């Protein structure tokens, strides 16, 4: 069990860094209204209970898994990806109904965005270091 840790951590780091390209872009405005398709409060409960936080972080900022915030994936794509993902564990309709997936998606839309590195003094300072 433990012998696989470093390998998995390495994979996790690759996943996290590869997700960087999609981050920090503004979310399409249409998604805000689409969030009404699900119940964000119920989605929060599912996000925690089904350990979505484990790979994506409590803030959706990523970690072992991809960043979710800002969300750029419409609900149909999100649902399709959960049903048949490339890397993350699959979630079929047997364990998460379409309505529950919509709840989770709606919750993700509510997660706050982070400021850009240049707007954070500490990181701005880091950016300037040689």
């Amino acid at each position, binding site marked *: *069990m*433990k*012998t*696989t*840790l*470093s*390998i*998995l*951590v390495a994979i*996790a*780091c690759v996943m*996290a*860094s590869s997700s*960087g390209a999609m*981050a*920090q872009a503004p979310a399409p405005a249409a998604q805000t209204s689409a969030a009404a398709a699900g119940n964000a409060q119920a989605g929060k409960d599912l996000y925690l*209970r*089904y*350990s979505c*936080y*484990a*790979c994506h*972080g*409590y*803030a*959706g*900022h*990523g*970690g*072992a898994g991809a*960043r979710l*915030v800002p969300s750029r994936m419409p609900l149909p794509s999100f649902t399709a990806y959960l049903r048949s993902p490339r890397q993350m*564990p*699959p*979630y*079929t309709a*047997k*364990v*998460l109904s379409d309505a529950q997936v919509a709840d989770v998606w709606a919750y993700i839309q509510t997660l*706050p965005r*982070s*400021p*850009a*590195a240049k707007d*954070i003094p*500490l*990181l701005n*300072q*880091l*950016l300037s*270091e*040689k």
Partner: protein
Amino acid sequence: MAKSAKRSVDRRGFLRGAAVGAAALVTQPSVALPRQQEPPARPAPATPSSAQLGADTEPVPSSGRSRIVEHPGSDFMVDVIKALGFEYAAANPGSSFEGLHESIINYGDNKTPELLTCCHEESSVAMAHGYAKIEGKPMLALVHGNIGIQHASMAIYNAYADRVPVYIIAGNFRDAGIRPNGVNWYHSAQDMAGMVRDFVKWDDEPASLSAFAESAVRAYKIAMTPPAEPVLLVVDHDMQLKAMPQANVRIPRLTMPSFPAGDQAAVREAARLLLAAENPRINAGRLARTPNGITLLVELAELVQAAVNGGGDRVNIPSRHPLAGNGSGQADLILNLEVQGGGGPGGPAGARAPNAKTISISALDLYIKSNLQDFQHMADVDLAIAADAEATLPALIEEVKRQLTADRKRALQDRGAKLAEVHGQARGVAKEGAAYGWDASPISLARLSAELWAQIKNDDWSLVSWQGFISGWPGRLWNIDKHHQYIGGQGAGAMGYGAPAAVGAALANRKHGRLSINIQTDGDLNYAPGVLWTAVHHKIPLLTVMHNNRGYHQEVMFVQRMASERNRGADRAHIGTTLREPNIDYAKMAQGYGMHGEGPIADPKDLAPAIKRGLELVRKGEPALIDVVTQPR
């Protein structure tokens, strides 16, 4: 009924039993517990008989000769230990090495080595593991016969898999003819080293003091010769206690061998391949044994303008060196320096051209054992140089210089400029990525790392913990360019290493005046938290910042994946994997051991002031712990 009564006696004898109680039961059966009593519903506390108490507290009957031994054999053992230059001996006390213990603290004046009081043998050996990765030489760990070795075994295996020298001495009551009945039998073995022989490089149980001296020096030499590994000496309790013989006993001189360097023809071919390659990549594993390893690797990389994957086990190349990283595209030549394994399923095939050639320089080709499978897959190698990589680099550098033409040098400079650009982009992505979740609670590991960096970057600092569980953020954000600034991970992936290895590394850093930082995972600390007391007791300055994600988080993700792939949902993945209900209060834990502890800190705004308070104490020479509730990764 009789069976019940017997079970009651056994439980009293073994579970409650003091060693002497067990001895008394055997040696004086007439005063053993009554055999025919009705067994109580719950076992009553055993009341020691007068004979038992006597055996425990009264002096051993005189044999008619003086019991005073002013020059015991263990004094000579200390002479040998001092000759080998050990600074410290980490130990949880045990009667099988009581003679050596007493000699170290009195005859040896508790200096070189100084005895370190440890609360678990796994801590003793893991401390020695961390110490060696900073100091470049072994620390002594003393362990009790059988039981101490078994407690220490996981830490020995970690050090073995991490190719780190640790020097272990275990006691043994070897001669059954003089061994009194009782607990000492449980601490004696016919072949004590056998239980860890699969993961020590060499062991011996010398039968005389002259043999001890020779084996002790030999063990040191073997431990330090690449690949460096743990060694074990088993020393007889009686040999420690008996008087020294009149004749002088010789201590052999330690002369370290020159380390194995690569064959000249093979090195010449390696240089030719490196210079001919269009997109070479250097993978550095446990390469840099010393600070010079970094200097040599940088020189080689700059000569051939190759990207260097510095790995995660040692500081091999400065994190902000423009050639640090995987470069771009598919490598057509890979130079593996002390990289374990290679090839096999699961490898990063995409980063390697189909016709790529691979060179390996590794001392692991000189040493392998059969049972435990730490050796990984057979590497797919075109040129294998069985030698220590650091010892081989000077010859390889000279050969590259000899073969490098002016034209080729110009072409390589162009490649270097492109690699520098890729490196700069990767740094930019890392910094931008650190912003995500910046204000989140629990606190992101990027923010934790950035806040720490801001307060330590002007010190001579040392990160004495592994980055694997914190998504490598220090490596992405900090300027890690010195050998002592990072010590890598466990070796065999076993938890329980982190806290004691950090304390051992911080101890090594202490005399250099370095600021030691441990980003400590919560699951790991709970294996043997008593090492916090050891840090306080021995005044080892170390800032421990908890990465408290309240679980064995890697296992949360494993179980989650398992449940999902079985179409059962992941809503029970927390069962057996998380450390909640109740949450563990690490600040109180630290305080209980006499250490400054504060937290839990979950609001990122509170983090920097807490780090500042902790660092103020550490800079004064004390350990301190800050409990930070963190994001999972």
